[in-house]
């Protein structure tokens, strides 16, 4: 009997899974269901499109022919309203029931809405999809002043879009620096300076208490908790993602701010797998449940999940992620999990070069490098090998890190 696989989500995790399933199971029925109106696109590059640097075409990855050539049934604009693991079926908003032998939940996340007055006003944008990017680009092209909220990896994309589109913007942050959970002020100041050079002014100890609008309901200003008012005809909000786990509520599939999976991407319910941003996965390197929003991680998870959907427990997900910011003329790399350490070391080498490592139980679990990425391979190797190296911080903070010169590999 022909096996049937259903994938919820056509992002890089879901699409990677579909590709792997077709490669390994030539005769299987494969259905991909997505609530978006277009097939896989490059979520990393939509910011380049919104900045006005790239046209639309290079951002699209798959066209309909890709699915036809692989005999993958792609259902666009289709919302999954119910998942029934006992019956091995899902239901869509059109009351269609689609049966499966194995299910992959790769539904990703949705931007968190800022819970303040007028956060739904015209001119206030959230940024996640290609369609969001189209709206943001169009609005930013005619905007003069802006406000950005969300002092993390998504918010800085909005700040960069403001800068590229010539919008004079204020970046309102609650804390003392950008990405305060991963950087110290020494490292963050490099980012702050770069933003200022591009017409984006960081504001600390701030945030948004409410937006103000005109009589037509268009945003005109943001007021922060201190009462300071920032005029804006364009606002970008990026305060995090809510993971789309509502479809698995009540199914017995374990969730914990995401769908919990083991190292085979298997959920707590038989024949149901998950991959991509939505997962809280058992990380074989840190030994903890982790989440990761990087493209490479999602792609690999999709492939690993698919392999295990065909042959259970045949492949493990073991990965050191990379996340780069490419808005500036200096490189920025975050790898692994830079915010979950119980110990840290950092060093500043110049006004534009800084790095920080996070350790857990003496082993590198992540880090951030700004300006000089030459040590990235060494750090990733040490993390992958789970070497206890926190007692050699000075050597790790040398400009050039020689893995072979460190103390022999130990098991913690």
């Amino acid at each position, binding site marked *: 009997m022909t096996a049937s696989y259903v994938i919820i989500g056509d992002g890089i995790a879901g699409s990677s899974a579909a590709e792997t399933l077709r490669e390994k199971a030539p005769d299987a029925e494969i259905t991909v269901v997505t609530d978006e109106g277009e097939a896989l696109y490059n979520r*990393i590059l939509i910011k*380049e499109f919104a900045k006005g*640097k*790239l046209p639309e075409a290079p951002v699209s990855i798959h066209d309909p022919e890709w699915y036809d050539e692989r005999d993958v049934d792609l259902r666009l604009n289709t919302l999954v309203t119910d998942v029934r693991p006992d019956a091995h079926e899902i239901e869509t908003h059109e009351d269609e029931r689609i049966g499966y032998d194995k299910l992959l939940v790769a539904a990703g996340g949705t931007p968190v809405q800022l819970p303040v007055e007028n956060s739904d006003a015209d001119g206030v944008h959230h940024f996640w999809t290609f369609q969001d990017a189209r709206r943001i680009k169009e609005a930013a092209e005619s905007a003069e002043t802006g406000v950005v909220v969300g002092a993390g990896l998504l918010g800085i994309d909005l700040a960069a879009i403001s800068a590229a589109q010539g919008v004079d913007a204020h970046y309102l942050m609650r804390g003392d620096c950008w990405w305060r959970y991963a950087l110290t002020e020494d490292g963050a100041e490099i980012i702050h300076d770069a933003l200022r050079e591009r017409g984006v002014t960081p504001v600390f100890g701030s945030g948004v208490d409410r937006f103000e609008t005109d009589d037509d309901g268009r945003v005109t200003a943001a007021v922060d908790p201190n009462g300071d008012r920032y005029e804006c005809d364009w606002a970008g909000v990026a305060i995090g993602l809510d993971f789309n786990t509502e479809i698995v509520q009540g199914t017995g599939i374990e969730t914990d701010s995401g769908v919990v999976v083991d190292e085979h991407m298997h959920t707590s319910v038989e024949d149901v797998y998950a991959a991509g941003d939505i997962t809280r996965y058992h990380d074989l390197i840190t030994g903890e449940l982790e989440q990761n929003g990087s493209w490479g991680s999602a792609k690999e998870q999709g492939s690993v999940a698919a392999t295990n959907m065909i042959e259970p427990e045949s492949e493990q997900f073991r990965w050191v992620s*990379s996340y*780069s910011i490419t808005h500036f003329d200096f490189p920025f790399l975050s790898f692994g999990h830079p915010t979950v350490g119980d110990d840290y070391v950092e060093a500043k080498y110049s006004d534009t070069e800084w790095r920080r490592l996070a350790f857990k139980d003496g082993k590198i679990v992540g880090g951030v490098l700004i300006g000089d990425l030459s040590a990235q391979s060494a750090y990733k190797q040490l993390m992958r090998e789970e070497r206890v190296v926190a007692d050699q911080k000075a050597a790790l903070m040398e400009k050039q890190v020689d893995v072979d010169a460190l103390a022999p590999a130990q098991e913690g």
Partner: protein
Amino acid sequence: MPSSTDLSVTDPGSLSADARVRHVDELDERAQAFLDAARAEGTTPDDPPADLTPGDVVVFTEYYRVR
């Protein structure tokens, strides 16, 4: 594997609609390190990785075209 590879900064405004554009995070580790070394040194190192295909454009600190 390309026998030789050159990386040069390119203007994104000059890209054709069918240009194959990738972000540095889509590259494998070896290609990422190679690209960064080229950026830092201003010259393209030897022994190019297979993940960089001639004609590709990679978004990094600049838009880099692989030749």
